[in-house]
């Protein structure tokens, strides 16, 4: 039942979190020089685009952004219950010596980030890779942490975090739902 959905971040909250993350990224990297955003499919791509747009407003420079699809790098392909679908990687610039900000919506087990790091390394040798996520919900299974976090959200493994973004879902919000609800 949709009634059990709990909104943990509303549209304004999402907007503020992304604005703050953008400032933090610009501060840490001292501007946009050498900076690139790589979004993890699917919602990481939308968030990376928003960060790039906000950075352009602040610095007047458009930071290049790309898309990474981690399907071919997943560690659970042999266990996937459904046929995985490849949606494609699109990085149209060299990553060598760049400061890459990897962007995803939710940081959970860390396995997606591990896969994305492996994929990134196949495209070159970045000077550094930083991780930006809208939600960190805990329950890491690998030694991975985020450099920029929109909101730390303590969760139970029986809950699911659902990020909704205007580009894809018509509205900006983050909700917590019981996993059994599907």
């Amino acid at each position, binding site marked *: 039942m949709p009634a059990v959905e709990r909104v943990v971040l509303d549209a304004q909250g999402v907007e503020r979190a992304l604005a703050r993350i953008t400032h933090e990224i610009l501060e840490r990297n001292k501007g946009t020089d050498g900076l690139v955003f790589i979004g*993890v499919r699917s919602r990481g791509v939308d968030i990376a685009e928003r960060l790039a747009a906000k950075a352009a407003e602040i610095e007047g420079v458009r930071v290049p952004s790309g898309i990474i699809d981690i399907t071919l790098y997943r560690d659970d*392909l*042999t266990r996937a219950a459904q046929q995985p679908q490849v949606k494609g990687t699109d990085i149209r610039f060299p990553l060598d010596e760049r400061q890459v900000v990897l962007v995803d919506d939710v940081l959970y087990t860390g396995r997606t980030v591990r896969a994305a790091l492996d*994929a990134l390394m*196949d495209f070159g040798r970045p000077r550094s890779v930083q991780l930006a996520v809208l939600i960190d919900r805990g329950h890491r299974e690998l030694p991975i942490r985020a450099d920029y976090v929109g909101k730390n959200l303590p969760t139970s493994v029986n809950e699911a975090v659902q990020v909704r973004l205007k580009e894809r879902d018509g509205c900006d919000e983050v909700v917590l739902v019981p996993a059994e609800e*599907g």
Partner: protein
Amino acid sequence: MAFTHQHLLGLEGVSRDELLYLIDQAAQFKEISERDIKKVPTLRGKTVVSLFYEASTRTRTSFEIAAKRLSADYVGIASSTSSSTKGETLLDTARNIAAMRPDALVVRHSAAGAPHFLAQRIDCPVINAGDGAHEHPTQALLDLLTIRDRLGRLDDLTVAIVGDILHSRVTRSNVHALRALGARIRLVGPPTLLPVEATSWGEVHHDLRSGIRDADVIMMLRLQRERQGRNFLPSLDEYSRYFCLTRAALEAARPDAVVLHPGPINRGVEIASDVADGAASLIMDQVTNGVAVRMAVLFLLTSRVRQAAADAAGAMIEEPQPERLRRSVG
């Protein structure tokens, strides 16, 4: 959408949605071949074995490169160096290979139905890499991907297939696929090289220019000289005089028509060099796309196996995760 067939034996019976899914997935694999590091770890630890009982350069190399770019181990067996020269039957050879637990078996054989025969008897996905005059599914898939890349669509196509239709497995796979996609099909060639069932596949033409008139796509076929033992043609010269696609003949087609050929080409027999190497020719794009198509097929069939294995084990290893859960993982 998914491709849930256990084997890829042919395109007969493969639906429009499944075809488009296969082509969409193949398109996503193209980018890997453009990288500096042309390798992804996806099929690490998987073994792909190919059994080629007929000569092949393109298809065999293409499957091998596809498997290796996915990090699978690839073992290629050619009939000339296999125990078939000592009298071992196809089934015995295949059983022995299956006993070594490969994750996919790629088969080319001169007998139509050989891959189907094996698929029923061994416990591993079988991919047909060409069986007699029956089917060559990955060729038709790469043809479709190549057409879509250039023309931007697969709807509302007029496709002329020209040449040695009788012996052509490429034609049969393409006819199944093009019919599923609703294309207008023309089959063009001398009466001796057209099978009786061609009239049920599309319009039959015996004149090259009328056959390709206003066509969007011209698929030239290799004149299979190794199968011409029974006097299908008075002479090669006569064949090429009537059916060789020259620049002059090509003018009958649409100005933006594209020319495909599965290779190997007989220059000056079925296709003139200036057409094969000209702007309308997509022959090299076909070869490039062949690798992506075979990567997609290997990927999809081996992921299907995991699902089947999980089903067979009595329960899924994991419950199917709802969409929102999968999104938030990681």
